[in-house]
């Protein structure tokens, strides 16, 4: 690893120390990537480079590869789509993937180095690029073709590519306060309600936030939550209305 990258000192919310240690912790699954602010790392690296006062292209290249690999791993962890959920990468595999990317890019760099050497060796060797001045003209004959191929080629060009997934766009978290208000006003009108009934039609993210709001209200002793059995309907009631019902939610 280039020195400029290894020496990079980080002071993040989730981590304080050199970049290579951060990388190792991520690889060893001791630090969840979701908690790491990658933008902060980029800023730190740019500042670090500015402090050094020289443009180290190798370090920049290496940093870019590392940070983009981290970004991809993080994005994958944050926005798992249905398919990826099934074949979800274990942390172990994700680390393997990161190392694989690094190796692949390193090979490309080495191969480029080989090509540069060849180019250098042949820099002074000239050859004719066009046809010879007095050569006969080649006659390229084409076998009879089917006109249907033309229509087929045009149809190929008209096939819509699959739309890029916008699943992650939906992952905007509505504020918890929105649901706090909603539950409070509901309980002003009614003494109890059924959670599943009220969140019908909401997205998974919204349901999750709605549930967080419930826990918040429970913490403040405003409500009581009851569930007869795991996966049974969750009933919510005003804390003062039914003290007899205790919170019996089981952990699954």
């Amino acid at each position: 690893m280039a020195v400029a990258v290894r020496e990079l000192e980080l002071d993040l919310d989730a981590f304080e120390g050199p970049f290579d240690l951060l990388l190792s912790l991520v690889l060893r699954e001791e630090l969840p990537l979701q908690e790491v602010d990658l933008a902060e790392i980029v800023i730190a690296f740019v500042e670090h480079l500015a402090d050094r006062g020289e443009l180290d292209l190798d370090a920049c290249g290496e940093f870019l590869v590392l940070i983009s690999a981290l970004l991809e791993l993080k994005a994958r962890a944050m926005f798992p789509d249905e398919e990826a959920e099934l074949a979800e990468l274990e942390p172990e595999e994700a680390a393997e993937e990161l190392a694989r990317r690094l190796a692949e890019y390193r090979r490309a760099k080495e191969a480029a180095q080989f090509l540069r050497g060849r180019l250098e060796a042949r820099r002074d060797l000239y050859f004719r690029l066009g046809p010879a001045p007095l050569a006969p003209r080649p006659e390229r004959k084409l076998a009879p073709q089917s006109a249907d191929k033309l229509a087929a080629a045009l149809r190929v060009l008209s096939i819509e590519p699959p739309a890029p997934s916008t699943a992650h766009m939906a992952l905007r978290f509505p504020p918890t306060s929105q649901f706090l208000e909603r539950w409070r006003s509901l309980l002003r009108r009614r003494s109890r309600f059924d959670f599943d009934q009220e969140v019908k039609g909401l997205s998974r993210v919204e349901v999750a936030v709605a549930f967080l709001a419930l826990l918040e209200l429970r913490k403040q002793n405003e409500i009581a939550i009851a569930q007869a059995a795991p996966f049974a309907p969750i009933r919510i009631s005003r804390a003062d209305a039914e003290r007899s019902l205790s919170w019996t939610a089981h952990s699954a």
Partner: protein
Amino acid sequence: MDSPLRLITTEATPAAELAKVVEALLVVASQPLPVEEIAAAAEVDVTHVGEALELLAERYCEETSGIVLEHVAGGWAFRASAAASEACSRLFEKPTEKGLSQAALETLAIVAYLGPLSRPEIARIRGVNVDGVVAGLAERGLISEGGRENEFGAIRYRTTPLFERIFGLESLSALPRVDDLGADVTEIRARLEAVAEKRPA
């Protein structure tokens, strides 16, 4: 031919050395080279080039070589010997090609159905630079220049009678119908351009 013993003999005269440079220039050139150009490239006098060419003419002649030095209108150039002419014509007589590349086929289809079109317009639909493909199709006589977009605009291309012959079409109106892609040329073109924009680069 010069002896390989250059280091231990004094036979390699400046003229012979110059001749080597001249033959190198001639084998790289794709046009006949005027004496003046050779002289300028070799940084020698024109008369020296003349001497070198004389040496080369002796060596590269019908009697002794498959490569023959010839003085033509534009200057000096190598050609194949008459004795090798049959082999050369076999080399250049390409076997009949079975098909066209996907790139060529797509470009031809666009020009046939939507033409006449300029290269930038074709590129927009295919989503990739088409200069090479268009040049290749033009060289093979499957498309040809057909006017300009406007007085100063880009050259437009259309398919040729040879294209119609090879594809077994009596005219362009005999092309297979592509109603499924749109009602008319404008609509089809708009659709293809819209798709091209969505395609990953």
